[in-house]
C-alpha cells in the first residue's frame, strides 16, 4: 500500500503544528468561534450533540495493522474506547475534548494518517471498492487512481473553496461496490475494444435533499488524461456552481439545471484548453511509480479449496454460515476475501471497540498481508487470506465478538449516527437498525430472505444512503415526534436507482413492523431465485404499498 514520502509527511506534520496553534489561540480567546469554525472543519473536527467529533480519513478505505492499532489507542486515550466506521470509509470519534485534538492529530500523523479534507467545501477523501486488488472481477486495482486523485486534490489551492463539498469514488470492476453513481464524480475503470484501460466518467450523482443518479458524460477517457479531465470538471463547477443557496450548491444541481449535454460540452471545452497545454498529462513513469505501491502481495501458489477447509465447513454449521455470508472469491486460487461484519444483532452499525480494533489488526498481520479495508457499508475486510486459514480466522473473530454472519443480508444495515449523536439529525437511526436486526436475528430466515440492503438516515442529508437502500428509511420530525418515511427499490450498484416513497411515514414504534410487512410481501410474491430487488422490479410498488397501509 501507499507509504508517505517526505512531502506527504511534512505536509501532514505542518498541518498538525498549525492546528495546534489555532486551538491554543482559540482557547486563549485570541480568535472567535466564527474565525475558528472553518479552521477546525478543515481538520475534520465537528461539534456534535455531546462533544467534539473528529472524522479521520482512511484513503480509499485501505489501512494496515499499525494504523489500526493506533486508531484503537486513540479511542482509549482520547475517547471512550470505541470508534465508528462511516459510509465514507472513514472512522469517527464521538467524545473528544478540543484541547486534546492536537495531540491526537500528532499521534495520527505518526502512522501516516490525518483528518484533513474530511469536512468543508473541498474535495473529500476519495472512496473505492473495498475488494480492490483482490476481487476476481476486477479490470484493474482502482487504488493507484485514487492515490493520484488524493495527491492532486490535497490542498489544491484552486479547489479549497468550492461552492460545496465534493466527493469522488472509483471502482475497478464492472460490479460496482463503491456506489460511484451517487458521487459528485464517479469513475469506473474500463477496457476499450483495443484492450486499453481507461476511465468511464459519471458526474452529478448525490443523495441528500435532492437525490440524483450521476450522468454518464464520458465513455472512455485515456488514462493519461485523468487529471486534466477532472480539473476541467472542477473548473466548470467552480465557475458556474451556485454559491448563493447552500441547497443548490452541489454539482448535481448544476448538471441538472444546465442539462447533462450542456455540462458535458462545457467540460470538453475546458478539457480541450487544458489538454492543449499538456501540462496535466500523467507521465507513464509516474503512473508506474504510484502503481508500484499497490503491487500485489507475494501470493503463494495454492491449489483450490484444501481438504481441511472443506472438512471444517462440513463439521461446523456456524462456520459454514459465516463463509456463505461473509467470504467471497479472491482473484488468486486458494485465497479468499473475508468480510468482518460490524453489525452484530442488536448492536450499533459501524461501531468497534479498541480491543476489537487491536484484534482485527493482529488478524490482518497474521493472515492478510497486513492489509485491512473499511467498506462504505460500515464493515471491515481482510482482503487476502488463505482459504485454509479461514477456520482459524473465524474462531479468532468469534472470540472478538466479530463473527456475525450477515454480509448483504437483512441485518447488515447501514445507519448514520442519527439523533443519538448528530447535531443535524431529526430522528434516531441506530435504535431502528437495532430493532430490525433483532426482529430478523434468526440466520436461516436471513438466508432465506437473501440479499436485502436496508439503509437508514436520521435526516434529509442522507449519510445513511436511504435513497439507495433496497428498503430505505428516513427519520423525520413531525411536531417533535420521530417518524420514518420508507422508500423501496433503491440500489447503489452498477444499476443505481433511487427508491420510491411508499406513502405516509410511520411512528418509531411501528417502523419495524412495517419492514417486516415489506419482507413478508416479498417472500410471498417472489418467484424461484428472485431477490428482493428483482421481485420489486417485476411487481412494482403497488402490492407492497397495499400491504403496508392495509391496516391503517
Amino acid at each position, binding site marked *: 500500500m501507499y507509504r508517505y514520502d517526505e512531502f506527504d509527511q511534512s505536509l501532514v506534520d505542518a498541518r498538525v503544528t498549525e492546528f495546534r496553534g489555532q486551538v491554543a489561540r482559540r482557547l486563549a*480567546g485570541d480568535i472567535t468561534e466564527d474565525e475558528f469554525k472553518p479552521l477546525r472543519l478543515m481538520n475534520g473536527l465537528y461539534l456534535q450533540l455531546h462533544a467534539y467529533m473528529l472524522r479521520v480519513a482512511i484513503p480509499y478505505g485501505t489501512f494496515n495493522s499499525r494504523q489500526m492499532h493506533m486508531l484503537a489507542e486513540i479511542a482509549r486515550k482520547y475517547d471512550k474506547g470505541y470508534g465508528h466506521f462511516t459510509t465514507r470509509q472513514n472512522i469517527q470519534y464521538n467524545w473528544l475534548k478540543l*484541547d486534546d485534538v492536537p495531540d491526537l492529530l500528532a499521534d495520527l500523523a505518526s502512522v501516516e494518517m490525518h483528518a484533513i479534507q474530511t469536512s468543508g467545501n473541498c474535495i473529500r477523501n476519495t472512496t473505492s471498492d473495498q475488494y480492490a486488488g483482490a476481487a476476481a472481477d476486477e479490470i484493474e486495482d482502482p487504488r493507484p487512481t485514487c492515490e493520484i486523485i488524493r495527491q492532486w486534490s490535497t490542498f489544491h489551492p484552486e479547489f479549497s473553496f468550492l461552492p460545496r463539498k465534493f466527493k469522488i469514488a472509483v471502482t475497478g470492476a464492472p460490479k460496482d461496490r463503491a456506489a460511484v453513481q451517487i458521487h459528485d464524480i464517479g469513475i469506473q475503470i474500463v477496457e476499450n475494444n483495443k484492450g486499453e484501460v481507461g476511465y468511464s466518467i459519471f458526474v452529478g450523482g448525490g443523495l441528500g435533499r435532492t437525490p440524483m443518479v450521476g450522468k454518464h458524460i464520458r465513455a472512455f477517457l485515456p488514462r493519461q488524461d485523468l487529471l486534466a479531465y477532472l480539473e476541467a470538471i472542477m473548473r466548470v463547477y467552480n465557475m458556474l456552481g451556485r454559491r448563493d443557496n447552500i441547497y443548490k450548491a452541489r454539482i448535481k444541481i448544476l448538471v441538472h439545471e444546465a442539462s447533462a449535454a450542456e455540462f458535458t460540452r462545457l467540460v470538453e471545452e475546458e478539457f480541450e484548453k487544458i489538454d492543449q497545454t499538456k501540462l496535466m498529462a500523467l507521465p507513464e513513469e509516474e503512473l508506474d511509480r504510484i502503481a508500484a505501491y499497490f503491487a500485489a502481495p507475494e501470493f503463494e501458489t495454492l491449489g483450490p479449496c484444501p481438504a481441511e477447509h472443506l472438512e471444517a465447513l462440513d463439521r461446523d454449521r456456524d462456520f459454514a454460515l459465516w463463509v456463505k455470508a461473509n467470504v467471497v472469491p479472491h482473484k488468486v486460487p486458494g485465497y479468499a476475501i473475508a468480510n468482518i461484519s460490524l453489525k452484530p444483532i442488536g448492536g*450499533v452499525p459501524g461501531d468497534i471497540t479498541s480491543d476489537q480494533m487491536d484484534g482485527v489488526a493482529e488478524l490482518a498481520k497474521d493472515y492478510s498481508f497486513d492489509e485491512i479495508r473499511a467498506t462504505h457499508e460500515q464493515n471491515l475486510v481482510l482482503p487476502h487470506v488463505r482459504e485454509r486459514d479461514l477456520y482459524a480466522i473465524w474462531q479468532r473473530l468469534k472470540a472478538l465478538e466479530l463473527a456475525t454472519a450477515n454480509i448483504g443480508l437483512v441485518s447488515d444495515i447501514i445507519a448514520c449516527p442519527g439523533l443519538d449523536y448528530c447535531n443535524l439529525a431529526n430522528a*434516531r437511526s*441506530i435504535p431502528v437498525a437495532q430493532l430490525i436486526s433483532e426482529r430478523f436475528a434468526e440466520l436461516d430466515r436471513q438466508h432465506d430472505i437473501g440479499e436485502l440492503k436496508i439503509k437508514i438516515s436520521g*435526516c434529509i442529508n442522507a449519510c445513511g444512503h436511504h435513497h439507495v437502500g433496497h428498503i430505505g428509511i428516513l427519520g423525520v420530525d413531525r411536531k417533535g*415526534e420521530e417518524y420514518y418515511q420508507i422508500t423501496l427499490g433503491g440500489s447503489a450498484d452498477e444499476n443505481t436507482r433511487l427508491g420510491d416513497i411508499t406513502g405516509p411515514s410511520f411512528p418509531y414504534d411501528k417502523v419495524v413492523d412495517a419492514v417486516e410487512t415489506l419482507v413478508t410481501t416479498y417472500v410471498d410474491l417472489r418467484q424461484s431465485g428472485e431477490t428482493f430487488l428483482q421481485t420489486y422490479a417485476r411487481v412494482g410498488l403497488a402490492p407492497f404499498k397495499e400491504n403496508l397501509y392495509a391496516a391503517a
Partner: protein
Amino acid sequence: MSKPHRKAKGPQVLTANRLVDGDVVYWRDETTWVANLSDAKVFEDEDALAKAEADAQAQVKADKILDPYAFGVDLTGGRITPGSMREHIRALGPSVRLDLGKQAEAA
C-alpha cells in the same frame, strides 16, 4: 428536531455547549453553567429569559460557551423533563449507550 427556530411557549431552559470539551451545559445564573438539567434555572418569564440570553451571548464572546439557545421543558411531577427527543438525548447521552454520557455519570 434540529435546534428550535422559534421560542417555545411555557417554561424554558437555556443551554449551550462548553468550548473546551463540547459538553452540554445549562444556564443556572450569571456566573454558573451546570452539567445537569436538574440543576438548571427554569425560565417562566420571557423578560428574565431574554436577559439570560443576552448574558449568554456575552459569554460566547468571552469564549466560555458555544451556540446558546432556549428550549421548552415540562415540569410535571416536580422534575425538569425536556420537551423533545433531541434535548432528552443531550441531557442524558445516547439512547443506545446507557453506559455513556451524563446518564452514566449520574448512575
